[in-house]
Each structure stands twice: as structure tokens, then as C-alpha cells.
């Protein structure tokens, strides 16, 4: 094992040595530089692995005297890891900057090497003055590297940086001097024993030291200088500052944290949280990529600072939390900065350039998701553990702020991702990529992925996760070049096989929802055969969503559940954003999902208080704050079921999605929320705030959702939007049914879930087929298509009869049960709304079928063909099932009832053959089917016989007040179809909720804009911030 000191001797020696080479050969110097950093990295790595496998920490004494008399360095686990990261970043950054460095000459390589060296020393040293010296080396190194491009902006940034760090270093020096005076030593370990914090002056000295370190970490609001550096510097340097330098400084803070009392740690936490929230808030308003990354970096570092401050509460999980979040930040931020250097454009909207090289887009996505903390990236684990521990230790405010900060970060990161995927890129220059710039980015993406999986495998809680679906996704990614039909077959086979393997384990709700998710998934995938070409990137994403969905079914612990939830969110986000014009909708989907996920996380965290296991049934025995847990989780799940207030993402997202994606995200994805709610209600049972039953509120929410959704649907001009709002409404019924907590209520809800899956898939595929043929979604631009697409018409007809709940089809069953449930429960007023909604459903049902299929065929559609076979096939498969369930209702309802019986033993339906009996009424679906069918056939036969010679006429042969129609457009009554209704009740659908969210968003942006004005770019203001920060924190502490 090589002594850790050689990390320093090697790098520093090389730095001095290449000074000799001067103009001899730049290539050799560059090579030497990289070799030196690589060697240093190897040393760190060897120590890291050695210590991990049990070797003792290495201590390095200098000058032949033992500490505290001389300076000593320590190589422990943390040091090894951080130096490894630093040297890794150094190496990759070196590769990345190779061209620039060579261009700028040998001096820059020297500066770079010395900078890396100094960071290593900062991490390892145990002497505070030595720390100071090498911090100065690092500062000066950064001041030198910032001006790598020698631009005016970089120079200004560097100057600000110099002044700021100069002032901070001065304060640090005073702190060190007095620490030395009071403790009589400079060695950290000895200072710790000297317990100088027991008296005020001593603690002030330590305070000055710590506050300087914190200031080096760029706490909000005293960090304008740091952000300016991120913006002004070459992105390669930004990467180094954000990844390497910040890691080192964090470690210093961690190292020095042992010196301070707990009250200090709280302040550190507070500062960290403030920084996290503050800088993410300001990031929202940014349009400059590097500056945005700066805000994000500072935010992440703030979070890590807070974690350091929280160390006493995090216990054994501290290392996992800190390291996983740090590593995510490290790789992702470095990668992003490097990408920024490749893109060269600073405006976020110009990042649409990335589309020219799809693999860059993939990398970009990986980094964004890693930063936000999606699985399987390490920060996911870290955030999970952090929230759990915070909840455990009753740090609710911190928990809330962390989630808020993460959410704010999500806003701008996902907006950015959206820009890059969907923004117009007409006028952007071509993107050129050099090998040396791309390799580090790829490696850091691999790094963050690999480390995530590694963390997953070593962590106890994550050990039970199944990675097979993820491997399957990876496989699909590998075969992405193959044509659609191959991949589609592989995907269907994959899902089918998976369903086959897990089928025996499924029972009850899991079986039902498993079938909806997986069998439904296969069914909708069948429609995918109608696409031609390769459909790049589609299948891995679809499978990602299904992997998440199936994960929900299979989850036994809250962790697994949340893991699956996030996978599903990620997959569906990408599916949604694939649609045309779906940038903003995908963003709002993501933001609502993210907020929902955080609420779920918080809910799980609170639920976990006082529990030792993570099993899902801990929800059944929540120790404290049970109503709060319930509300958090319920709202979280309701973001997916798009209940009123949280629904605004849905219409756009579903309407703009691709033909076969719409059923997936509408018919299947929404059920994830339902499944979550069912799990929640099953486990937690009734919840009361005081004497108020929360479920009553849920019933109202469900009812209002139903009315709003259906009413909105009735006023839509866009067919897919209409269907999307109809989903909102239908999910309202389901929520309403669930809130009853009775046998019948749940029977209705679950059967409606199944039915909703069927008819919504049917309708979205049918309408999708039409849109595919006529190339518009505006209903009033269609009309008369029944003659061109009779098969599609039949499926839509059946679909709307089911939606409307008209007997004899299966939709009526749900309505009937709902009535009985209402009578049993007695919540009449929300029920009235639900029934009203049910009738409003007629409006949009009729409108859908009339304006599209009936009325006047348009000029341009005279030669439209029937929808593709592959779209019709799944429709007719579903149609068969619908007819089966309609004729034999107990084939659907009886198993569900049996499943519900153990949960709600009272009030079950009594079955006599196909006759269902409740306490109030009875219903025989089969007989109704026969009777109605019988009458229908008789009347039809008679009429047909009577009019067998009827003359077929064309569309303008109508009695039109003795005139003749002139244009199909003016003869087709379709636009604003329910105008009188709108006149009467339109006020109900005024976009209050959209306005609310819009103004909320504007408010946040306005605050963001106001807050960031404190960074006025003047170095004196920044210096003032720094000093004021010190004084204020001082006043708070003392």
C-alpha cells in the first residue's frame, strides 16, 4: 500500500516538474498531469477498498514528530472516498479540459494540478492552520482556473471570488489564531479534547472557524460570488468547483463538526436548509444554464450541509445518506456542467440542441433524474433514509423544507429537461462533440448509475428490490435499433411472462390491479403494432412505467412501494412528453407527481415513527399523527388520480400523448393512484380529525371531481381532451365509492376501476385511430365518420353506453351498486353531485359520438380509411369482455365481492345466479340483457321488414327548410355544442383551479425574482453579505 502522502508528492512534484518542461512538449505535460492525477486517484481507491475491507486507517506524520507537534494527515474511510472522488473528478475534468489546457499552455496545467493537490490535502489534513493554507491554495487555484477563458465575465467573477474568499480567509485566520490561543494547539483532535467551547470566547473562536468553512460552502444568501463564478467560469471549471471543491469543503465541515456543540449543529442545519430552499427558489427564475447549475449546486451543497448538521439524529444511516446524496450530486453536477460545455449555449431553451445527438439527451435525463432523486440513483436511497430519519427524530419542519426545496429544484430541472426534449430547435447551430468532452460525461453517467445500483445492493432496505424488470428495460434499450414489431413482441412477451411468473402470488386487490396493469398493458401494447419504423426510445420507457406499476403490486414495504412509484412516474413522464406539444403538460404532470411523491414520502416517514419495520402494514398501526399521515398519503395518491384541484396536469398530458400512449396513461396509470388509495384505506381504516370523518371530505372531493370533470368534458372541442376530462370525472366516482368504506362502496369503486380501464382504453384507442386518420383532434372538424369507420364507431358506441351507465351494458352495474351504497351510507349531498355528474356524462358521451361519427362528413374526409387493424384488434378484445361482463355481471362482481367480504363483512351483495340483491334492491344483469336484447331484436326485425326497400340517400338529402345545404362545415352542428348549457352552468367550469395554480406559479416566480435581486453583481455587496452573515449568525447563536 502506498502512503497517502504520495497523493500529494506525486501531484505537487509533477506540478513543479512540468514547469521545467515549459514549451518542450504540451502533450507530454498533459499526459503527465493526467497520469499524476490518475495515480493519486489509484492511491485513494486502493485505500478506500482496503479500509472498506477492514484495513486500519492510515495516518501520515510529517517531520518525524508525532502529532500534535507536527502536522499529520489522516486517511480514513471518508477521506479515502472523498479524495477518490476528487481525483476522479480531477482526472475526468482533466480529460475534458484537455484541449483548453493545451491551448492555454503549461501554466494552466500547473494550476490545475496544484488545485487538485490542495483539495486532497484539505480533505486529509488534521491541522487547522494547514487546512487554512491549503484552502488558500485551493482558492487561489480556483481564482486561476476561473479565468481559463480569459473572458471579461470570467475576470469579474474571479475578482469577486478573490475578494470574498480573502475576507472569509481573514475571518478564518482570526478564528484559528484564537483557537490556538485557547486550546494551545492546532490539531483538530486535540482541540476537540481541549473543550474550549465551554466558555464564550473559546466558542466564538470555534464559531469563526466553522462559519468560515460554511461560508466557503456558499450559504444562502452570502453566496453571490460563488454563483457568479459558476456562471462566469468555463463549465469544465464549474464542474470541478461544484463536484470536487464542494465535496472537499463539505468534508472539512464534517471533520470540524466534531468541535462544535449541538446548538451549532442546529444552526448549520438551518443554514443548510435555508440555502437549499433559497437557492432552489432563485433557480426557478434562471434562464442561464451555468448559473442555474450554480444555484442547483449550491442548493445541493446546502442540503448536504444540513445533513452534516443533522448527523447526531441520523445515526448509523448518516454515512449512507450523506454519501449517496453527495455522489449523486457529484456525478450529476459534474456531468451537467460538462454537458453545458458541450452545448456552449447558455440559454436553457437552446438546449434543444441536445436532440441532435440523442445519446446526449439520455445522459442529460440521467443527470436530471439523479439530481432529483429518482430510483435507481443513489440520491433516491439517500433521500428516503433522510426523510425517514427526520421523521423519526421529529424534525418535521426540516423535513418539510427539504421536500419543498427538492420540489423547487424539480421545477426548474424538469422545465429544463422539457426544453431540451421539446423546445423548437429550428435556428440552432449544429452540435459538435469531441471525444475528450464526451467521455467524462458518459463515465459520470455510468458512475451515478453504477453507484446507485451498488448502493441498492449493499443497503439492507433496498436489497429486496427486483432489478429484473430494469434489466429487461436495459435489454430493450440495447435492441432499440430493431423495428417496432420486434420490440413490441418482445415487450408483450416480457410482460406476459412476468405476469405468468407473478400470477400465482397475486390475490385480492393485487390480482385485480395486477391484471389491469399487466394484462391491460399487453392489450394496449398490441395497438403498438400499427406503428412503423423503429420508434426509438419508446419501449424502454413504456417498460419503465410498467415496471413501476408492477412494482406497486409486488411491494411489501413502503420503500419498495415508493421505489416503484417513482419508477412509474419517471416512465410515464417520458411517455407523456413524447407527444406533440406536450412540453408544458409533461412538466405540470411531473411537478404534480413530484409533489405527490414527496407527500407520500413524508407520509411514509411519519407512519414509520416508532416502527421498526418498513412493511406496508405499518400503516395499520401508525403511532402518531395518524390523520396527518392519512391526509399526506391520500393527497399524494390523489395527484395520480387527478382529483379536483390536482387535476390540471391530466387533460393536456393525456390529450397530447401518442395514440397508444393515451390509454396507458389514462386507463392504466391513473389506477396506480387508486391502488395506492386502496392500500392506504385498507391499512389505515377510518380516520377522524376531532369528530370529523376525513372520508366525508374525500367523498366531497370525489363528487366535486366527478362533476367538474364531466362538466369540463362536455365543453371540450378536442376529442382526446374530452376523454381526458372524462377520466377525471370517472376517477371522481371511484374516489367517492372508496370513501364510503363499505362493502358496496368499494364494490362500486373497484368494479368501476375495471370498467373504466376497459372503456377508456377502448375509447382512447378508437379516438386515437380516428385522429391518426384525420390528423386533427378537434371534433367539430370531423363528422359523419360512421360511414368511413364503422368498426371504430361500434366500439365508441359501446364505450359511451358503458360510460353513461345505461343498462344493459356493464357500466350500469357500478351505478346500481353506488345507489345502494349511498342509501346505506346516507351521504346524500355529495351523492347528489355524483348522480348529477352521471347525467352530465350523457352530454359529453353524446357529443363525442355525434360530432365525430354522425352528422355531416367533411370534404377532406371523403376518402378516409378505417382505423388500422392493430388499433381495432384490442378494442374488439375489450368489447368482448365488456359484453361478457354485461351479460354475466357476477363474473366480475362476485369475485370482487368475495374479495371484499373479509374486509367488509356487512352489506355484501347476495347472489342468486345472476341476480344481485342488496339491502335495498336487486338487479339481474343477465335477464335485463335478454329482455332488452329480445325487445330490440323483435322491434328491429319488424322495422327492417317494413322498410326493407328504403332508399339510401346522401348526406345533403335532408329537409332543410326547402333549401339545400351548401357546405358540410356549416351543416354540421358541432362547435360549442352545448352552448345553452354553457350559458346556464358555464360558471361552474370557470378555470378557478387553473388560475389558482397559475397564480401560485407566478407568485413563486415573482418571489424568486425578488429574492435573487440581492445578487446585484457588486463585489462590495457580496463582501457585505458575508460579513452580515457572520454577524447575524453570531447574534443568533450568542
Amino acid at each position, binding site marked *: 500500500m502506498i502512503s497517502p502522502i504520495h497523493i500529494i508528492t506525486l501531484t505537487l512534484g509533477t506540478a513543479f516538474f512540468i514547469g521545467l518542461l515549459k514549451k518542450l512538449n504540451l502533450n507530454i505535460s498533459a499526459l503527465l498531469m493526467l497520469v499524476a492525477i490518475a495515480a493519486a486517484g489509484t492511491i485513494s481507491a486502493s485505500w478506500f477498498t482496503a479500509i472498506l475491507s477492514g484495513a486500519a486507517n492510515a495516518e501520515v506524520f510529517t517531520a518525524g514528530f508525532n502529532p500534535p507537534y507536527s502536522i499529520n494527515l489522516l486517511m480514513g474511510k471518508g477521506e479515502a472516498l472523498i479524495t477518490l472522488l476528487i481525483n476522479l473528478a480531477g482526472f475526468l475534468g482533466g480529460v475534458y479540459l484537455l484541449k483548453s489546457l493545451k491551448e492555454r499552455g503549461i501554466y494552466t496545467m500547473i494550476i490545475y494540478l496544484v488545485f487538485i493537490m490542495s483539495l486532497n490535502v484539505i480533505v486529509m489534513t488534521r491541522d487547522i492552520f494547514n487546512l487554512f493554507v491549503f484552502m488558500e491554495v485551493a482558492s487561489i487555484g480556483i481564482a486561476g482556473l476561473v479565468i481559463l477563458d480569459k473572458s471579461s465575465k470570467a475576470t469579474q467573477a474571479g475578482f469577486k471570488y478573490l475578494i470574498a474568499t480573502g475576507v472569509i480567509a481573514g475571518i478564518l485566520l482570526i478564528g484559528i489564531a484564537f483557537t490556538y490561543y485557547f486550546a494551545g494547539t492546532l490539531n483538530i483532535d486535540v482541540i476537540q479534547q481541549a473543550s474550549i467551547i465551554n466558555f464564550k470566547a473559546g466558542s466564538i473562536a470555534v464559531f469563526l472557524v466553522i462559519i468560515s468553512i460554511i461560508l466557503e460552502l456558499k450559504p444562502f444568501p452570502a453566496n453571490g460570488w460563488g454563483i457568479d463564478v459558476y456562471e462566469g467560469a468555463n463549465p469544465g471549471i464549474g464542474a470541478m468547483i461544484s463536484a470536487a471543491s464542494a465535496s472537499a469543503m463539505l468534508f472539512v465541515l464534517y471533520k470540524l463538526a466534531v468541535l462544535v456543540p449541538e446548538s451549532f449543529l442546529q444552526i448549520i442545519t438551518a443554514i443548510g436548509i435555508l440555502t437549499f430552499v433559497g437557492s432552489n427558489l432563485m433557480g426557478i427564475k434562471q434562464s442561464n444554464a451555468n448559473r442555474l447549475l450554480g444555484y442547483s449546486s449550491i442548493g445541493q451543497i446546502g442540503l448536504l450541509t444540513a445533513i452534516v448538521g443533522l448527523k447526531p439524529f441520523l445515526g448509523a444511516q448518516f454515512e449512507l445518506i450523506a454519501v449517496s446524496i453527495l455522489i449523486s450530486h457529484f456525478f450529476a453536477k459534474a456531468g451537467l456542467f460538462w454537458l453545458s460545455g458541450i452545448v456552449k449555449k447558455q440559454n436553457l431553451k437552446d438546449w434543444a440542441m441536445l436532440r441532435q445527438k440523442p445519446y446526449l439527451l439520455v445522459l442529460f435525463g440521467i443527470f436530471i433524474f439523479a439530481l432529483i432523486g429518482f430510483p435507481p440513483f443513489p440520491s433516491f436511497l439517500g433521500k428516503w433514509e433522510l426523510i425517514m430519519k427526520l421523521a423519526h427524530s421529529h424534525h418535521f419542519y426540516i423535513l418539510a423544507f427539504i421536500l419543498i426545496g427538492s420540489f423547487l429544484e424539480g421545477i426548474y430541472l424538469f422545465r429544463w429537461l422539457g426544453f431540451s426534449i421539446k423546445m423548437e430547435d429550428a435556428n440552432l447551430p449544429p452540435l459538435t462533440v469531441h471525444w475528450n468532452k464526451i467521455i467524462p460525461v458518459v463515465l459520470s453517467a455510468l458512475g451515478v448509475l453504477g453507484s446507485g445500483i451498488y448502493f441498492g445492493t449493499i443497503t439492507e432496505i433496498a436489497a429486496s428490490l427486483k432489478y429484473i424488470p430494469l434489466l429487461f428495460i436495459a435489454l430493450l434499450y440495447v435492441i432499440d435499433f430493431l423495428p417496432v414489431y420486434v420490440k413490441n413482441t418482445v415487450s408483450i412477451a416480457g410482460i406476459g411472462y412476468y405476469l405468468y411468473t407473478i400470477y400465482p402470488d397475486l390475490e385480492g386487490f393485487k390480482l385485480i390491479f395486477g391484471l389491469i396493469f399487466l394484462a391491460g398493458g399487453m392489450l394496449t401494447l398490441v395497438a403498438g403494432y400499427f406503428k412503423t419504423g423503429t420508434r426509438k426510445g419508446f419501449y424502454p420507457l413504456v417498460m419503465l412505467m410498467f415496471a413501476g406499476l408492477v412494482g406497486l403490486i409486488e411491494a411489501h414495504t413502503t420503500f419498495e412501494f415508493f421505489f416503484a412509484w417513482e419508477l412509474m412516474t419517471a416512465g410515464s413522464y417520458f411517455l407523456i412528453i413524447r407527444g406533440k406539444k406536450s412540453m408544458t403538460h409533461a412538466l405540470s404532470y411531473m411537478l404534480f407527481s413530484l409533489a405527490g411523491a414527496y407527500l407520500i414520502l413524508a407520509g411514509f416517514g411519519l407512519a414509520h415513527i416508532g416502527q421498526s419495520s418498513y412493511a406496508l402494514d405499518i400503516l395499520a398501526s401508525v403511532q402518531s399523527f395518524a390523520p396527518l399521515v392519512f391526509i399526506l398519503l391520500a393527497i399524494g395518491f390523489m395527484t395520480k388520480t387527478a382529483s379536483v384541484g390536482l387535476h390540471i396536469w391530466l387533460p393536456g398530458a393525456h390529450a397530447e400523448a401518442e395514440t397508444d400512449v393515451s390509454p396507458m396513461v389514462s386507463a392504466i396509470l391513473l389506477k396506480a393512484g387508486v391502488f395506492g388509495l386502496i392500500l392506504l384505506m385498507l391499512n389505515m381504516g377510518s380516520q377522524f380529525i376531532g369528530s370529523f370523518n376525513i372520508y366525508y371530505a374525500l367523498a366531497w372531493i370525489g363528487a366535486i371531481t366527478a362533476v367538474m370533470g364531466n362538466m369540463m368534458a362536455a365543453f371540450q372541442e378536442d376529442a382526446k381532451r374530452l376523454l381526458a376530462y372524462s377520466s377525471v370525472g370517472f376517477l371522481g366516482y371511484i374516489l367517492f365509492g372508496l370513501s364510503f368504506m363499505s362493502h358496496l362502496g368499494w364494490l362500486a369503486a373497484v368494479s368501476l376501476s375495471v370498467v373504466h380501464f376497459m372503456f377508456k382504453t377502448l375509447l382512447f384507442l378508437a379516438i386515437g385511430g380516428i385522429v391518426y386518420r384525420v390528423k386533427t383532434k378537434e371534433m367539430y372538424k370531423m363528422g359523419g365518420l360512421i360511414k368511413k369507420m364503422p368498426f371504430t364507431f361500434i366500439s365508441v358506441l359501446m364505450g*359511451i353506453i358503458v360510460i353513461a351507465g345505461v343498462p344493459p351494458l356493464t357500466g350500469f352495474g357500478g351505478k346500481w351498486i353506488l345507489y345502494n351504497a349511498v*342509501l346505506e351510507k346516507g351521504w346524500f349531498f355529495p351523492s*347528489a353531485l355524483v348522480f348529477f355528474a352521471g347525467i*352530465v356524462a*350523457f352530454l359529453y358521451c*353524446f357529443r363525442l359520438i355525434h360530432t365525430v361519427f*354522425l352528422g355531416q362528413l367533411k370534404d377532406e374526409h371523403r376518402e378516409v380509411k378505417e382505423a388500422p387493424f392493430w388499433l381495432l384488434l384490442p378494442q374488439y378484445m375489450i368489447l368482448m369482455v365488456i359484453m361478457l361482463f354485461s351479460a354475466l355481471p357476477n363474473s366480475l362482481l362476485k369475485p370482487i365481492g368475495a374479495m371484499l367480504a373479509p374486509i367488509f363483512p356487512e352489506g355484501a351483495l347476495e347472489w342468486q345466479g345472476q341476480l344481485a340483491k342488496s339491502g335495498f334492491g336487486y*338487479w339481474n344483469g343477465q335477464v335485463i340483457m335478454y329482455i332488452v336484447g329480445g325487445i330490440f331484436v323483435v322491434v*328491429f326485425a319488424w322495422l327492417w321488414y317494413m322498410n326493407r326497400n328504403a332508399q339510401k340517400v346522401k348526406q345533403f338529402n335532408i329537409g332543410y327548410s326547402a333549401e339545400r345545404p351548401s357546405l358540410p362545415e356549416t351543416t354540421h352542428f358541432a362547435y360549442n355544442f352545448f352552448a*345553452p348549457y354553457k350559458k346556464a352552468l358555464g360558471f361552474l367550469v370557470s378555470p378557478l383551479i387553473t388560475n389558482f395554480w397559475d397564480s401560485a406559479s407566478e407568485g413563486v416566480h415573482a418571489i424568486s425574482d425578488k429574492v435573487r435581486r440581492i445578487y446585484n453583481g457588486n463585489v462590495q455587496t457580496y463582501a457585505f453579505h458575508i460579513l452580515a452573515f457572520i454577524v447575524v449568525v453570531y447574534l443568533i447563536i450568542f
Partner: protein
Amino acid sequence: MDFGFKHILYALLTVFIVLNYGLILQGIVRKIGARVGRRYGIRWYQPYIDIIKNYAKRSTITHGVMFYIAPVFRLTGGIGLLLFMPVIFGSEIFSNFSFAGDLVLVLYFQFFGVLGMALGAAEGGHPYSAIGVSRGLSQVTAFELPLTLGVLAIAMQYQTLNITEIVAAQQGGFLSWTLFTNPFATIAIMFSFLGAMGRSPFDVVLAPQEIPIGPPTEFHSGLLGVLQLNRAIFPAAKLILFMNLLFGGATSWPELVVKTFLIYMWSVFVGTVFPRFRVDQSVRWFLVVPLTIAIIAIILIRF
């Protein structure tokens, strides 16, 4: 209850009686309307002649399959509605298929014909049909809400959704009718009934002069004949429904005739007195007056 061949015969009998009753009722009501206007009026059997004439038309045109099927839907809806109710309380013969479903089925089955008719009308391609449907559906949503609440109040009152049981509970003197035991629900439902019958002031759907009788504007000959049959059966079925719910049902045909006739007269009177509402006006009216009364009914039942 088993489903046997005799049920079909019984059902045919019921349909036959009600059809004739409906036609005669139609004629008589028109006659009464004429007499109010000091006219002699049509002959009481004029509806029969009209139907025969329509079937006797020699030519028919068709706009497409749905156009063809719409009357079928409509008549199926009417007959179905009738057959899913017990027409005469206590009579096995005239209980028909009421064993297949309860009040909820009946309420929802009304829409079967409405929807089918709307589809067929729209298939005709006539803008006036579509306008009529738009108006009709709008109005339906409005009056259906107080109706539903009123029905819920009644079901709550009798603790059942079984129409037979509801009627049974009202036996024993007219004071045990819902009319007297639950007046608010009755008022709400009877207001909704006005909308359901589609007579003035809620007849903007058909508006003969504005949108030549709206949805059925393109129907003729045999197709119109089927619709006319339904126009006889469907209101009669609705009358029977409301009679069963509110006025103690009927234990014999004469009782049925008297009660349904009187109920029908309620809508005739209102229609004679009040002029036509615009759709938005009628929607607002239903959602203000009858709905308030229905809510009062619910509150009274609940507390």
C-alpha cells in the same frame, strides 16, 4: 323468480293494454286541449289513424344504419321501461319483468331510448336534429338532479329501492301515499316530472317552428310510426312510474287509469298556462326551485 314463456305473453298483454291506453290518452288529452281552446278537436282515435297512415306510407329513405336503429332503440327503451315496472300492484300478470331490477334500473333505463334516439337523429345529418338533442340533453341533466334526490328521499323513507315494496308501503288509504308522507319529495319529483314529459314550458327541444320538431325531424313513414308507438307507451310508462312512487300505485286497471290521467293533467295544466322556457332558463329553474325542494326533502328525511 324464473323467467318463463308465460312472461312473454304477460308482457305482450301489458304492452298492448298500455299502448292502447297511451294512444287513447294522447287523443283525449289533445281533445281536452282543443276544448280548452274552444275547438272541437281531433277525434279521440286520431292517433291510431296517424300511426296506421304512417305505416301505410309506401316509400322510405334512410340516412344510414343508426338512423334506422334509432326508433328501435327508442321503442325498446319505452317498452323496456314499462316492462321493468310492476304496472298493477299485487298482480302477478302485470308485474312483468320487475324482478330483473329495481328503481335504479328504471331510472337509468329511461336514457336507453333517449340516447339511441339522439344517435339516430344525429345520423340524419340534420343540424336541427343536433340542436334539438343538445337542448334535450341539457334539460335532462337539469331535471334529473331533483328527480334523483327526490327518489333517494323516497327510497330512504321506505328503506328500499324495490318499486313493488314502495307501492306496498303506500297501501292502506290515500294518507299513506308518498304525496302525504313525504310532500317535499313529491313536489320535487313532480316538478321534475314536468321536464320529463317534455311539454310546455319545457318543450323547446321540439320547437316545431324553430327547429322543425327537433330530433325526429327527418323521421317519417314506418320509422315515425315506431316513434309514435313509443310516444304512446313511454309517457304512459313514466306516468305509471310516478304513480307507483308517489300516489300509491294501482291495484287495478281503472285505478291506474284514473291516477295516471290525473297525473298527466298536472303537466297538461302547467303546459297550458306557461309559455316556453329557453334551455338556459329551464336549466337554471330546475337547479333552483325543484332542487331546493329536493334538498329540503332529503334534510327532512335524514334528520
